[in-house]
């Protein structure tokens, strides 16, 4: 693998081709907030917290999710522009109160929306961990759209309780409270 040169928040770094912008940023200590990311799992791109603004070497500007966007030569990345911050605030507000890890940092103290109908943020950490790492395949998402919710394969409670490794991944305690 060759290395490519890119710029993150004004700092020039070299990163291996194929790595993501998020990993490259972390390697030099730049923090990008994430919800659905976990080093042990494949990138998911679901929560959109890690959205950053990029400019390609052809001068094209846009918003991308840094956990799935691969580094490329001449890329300029800004990790907390005004647009990006607005998106992150909105995400916290929409998931309120299930997920408040960054609420303080982004100054969100309440939500203008009618939220709180669920204690699950549908980040998919538990079920991806269950399939990708444990290969147990016990949890899945049921339904789609606004009706989507995590569910256990019927008859799994017993073995889920015995394993319990995903409990600590869950920011809201959904999974522990159902097993």
């Amino acid at each position, binding site marked *: 693998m060759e290395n490519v040169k890119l710029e993150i928040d004004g700092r020039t770094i070299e990163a291996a081709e194929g790595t993501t912008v998020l990993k490259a940023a972390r390697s030099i200590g730049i923090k990008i907030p994430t919800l659905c990311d976990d080093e042990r799992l494949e990138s998911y791109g679901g929560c959109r917290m890690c959205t950053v603004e990029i400019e390609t070497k052809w001068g094209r500007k846009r918003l991308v999710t840094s956990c799935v966007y691969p580094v490329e030569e001449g890329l300029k990345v800004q990790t907390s522009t005004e647009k990006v911050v607005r998106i992150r605030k909105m*995400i916290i507000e*929409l998931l309120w109160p299930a997920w408040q890890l960054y609420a303080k940092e982004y100054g969100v103290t309440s939500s203008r929306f*009618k939220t709180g109908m669920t204690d699950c943020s*549908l980040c998919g950490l538990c079920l991806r961990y269950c399939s990708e790492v444990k290969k147990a395949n016990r949890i899945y*998402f049921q339904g789609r759209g*606004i009706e989507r919710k995590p569910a256990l394969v019927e008859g799994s409670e017993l073995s889920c309780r015995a394993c319990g490794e995903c409990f600590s991944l869950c920011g809201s305690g959904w999974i522990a409270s159902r097993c």
Partner: protein
Amino acid sequence: MSRLEKPADLEKLRDQIVAQRNSKSKWLAVCAGTGCRAYGAETLADSLEEEIEKRGMGETVGVRRTGCHGFCERGPLVVVEPSGLCYLGAQPKNVPAIIDTLSSGDGAIDKLFFQDESGKPISHVDEIPFYKHQKRVVLENNVRIDASSILDYIAVGGYSALAKALSGMTPEDVLNEVKKAKLRGRGGGGFLAGRKWETTRNAHGDPKYVIVNADEGDPGAYMDRSILEGNPHGVLEGLILGAYAIGASEGFIYVRQEYPLARNHAQKALEEAREYGLLGKNILGTAFSFDVKIHRGAGAFVSGESSALMSAIEGHVGEPRPKYIHTSEKGIWGKPSCLNNVETWANVPHIINKGADWFCSMGTEGSKGTKIFSLVGKVTNTGLVEVPMGITLRDIIFKIGGGVPKGKKFKAVQTGGPSGGVIPESLLDLPVDFDELTKVGSMMGSGGMIVMDENTCMVDTARYYTNFLAHESCGKCVPCREGVRQMLIILNRITSGEGKEGDLELLEELSEFMEAASLCALGQSAPFPVKSTLKYFREEYVEHIKDKRCQAGVCSALIAYDIDQEKCEACGACLRNCPVNAVNKSEDKVFTIIQEKCIKCGACFTACPEKFGAVIKVPAYTMQKQPATAALIDNKA
């Protein structure tokens, strides 16, 4: 004759079939599309055949069950060849009369013809305004062939483009012709098909795949279904040409489970094409091999998205994947895969046959060729229309569509399905063009065109699409799932009379956020229905919030049904049709509605004879105080 061993064999076969077909001097083309079937087209075709048989005319007259003719409003449709007489709404009882006119040569049946405004019958299909202003290229063969017969397709020139390409063109030539034609994808985005093909062609990986997207999910749109039902070989020929140009060896037709007829016809087309050596190993005796499988979609709007569709073909759940590498390069099983919708593929044989110059002679600078729309909703002539790009919306809706029925006032037209937007009357002179429609906040989409009149509520329309998307979003990413959820909550609030100040601003903020942050195109375009209605019909929103009024009389929480005592003739139609017995007959024979029982299903409103127009819609708040009909919303008479 079966397998064709070289391109020239096709011409020989065609000559044979044409000679055979010419033994009959007249054909009755009966539309057997899904719409006309619903009107009983099959029974009609059966009785036509019986009558012909009975009169011993079987030698000279034939009946052909064809694909959709387009004029669905007036089905079942029968077109006589070669005279071009067109019968609308024919019933089995009309059969003897129709057959009579065949032998006598004239004396047509006026009442089965289209009648213009003055009541003058128009007998010839090309003279009917609905057809006259269209430009039929892709749909042309629908009327001329029986979709379940490859011979019919070959007889009208089918597979000649393939023979032409395989006998004298290199794959590059085919690709260049499509590029030169500037054909843009008809599925929604409007990407240049040639460029997409080239990407897949140049991408590394083997095998390469080509895919027909027939997962038509837009509610109120049925172009792709009608093409695949009516002319499956036309689509297949385009796909084979594409595979040849791209260097693909395998193809898929992804068709919705809800379209059984389209699937069966496509299946039959594949089998027959294989039999004739037009598909499979060594097509037309050349070194080019290519085969196609059908994959049934199990019903999810989001499956139309390219990465979701490919994931479904792999046997996984149809969820979009974050992609910064396009599926043209890494698609099914990580191999280069080129996906186009039905209409796009169906255009290809015409481009190869008649050339890119011919194709470019139609349309505007940025949008070439024709486009098929399903013109539906509050329009006199519901149906499928194919028009040259660049025609104005006004021409489509008023010249072809015959305007809004019952003298109601036009309000807006919605294009682009759930990802599109509404276009108000002031913009009706806009030419139909990918870029022009995008500029005004709508989009071409796959071709749904829904006409709305004064009785259509724009807030309800936005709520309708948002509700659709709330259940059709896959739910993976936060902006789309939660954004659409909150939008729906707010819109439900407004349509039920509980809207608050600040709601509209919140909707706007959500729109901007979803557009910027969502994972796939579905989420990014999900706020468009809300955005465009807010842009052009903001006052309707304000009226719902501030006055608790729905001028169009749609939002059921804001309206009530009442009976105008002056107009009521006590015919009892409302009473008989009410499913909950909420209509009361008082002593002096006049009817009233018991508001507590009423479920607002509108049965009484529909049932009340138009000449009386006694059942009326009034704002709900007026019924809470007194039963008077203070402010009429909609009055039929």
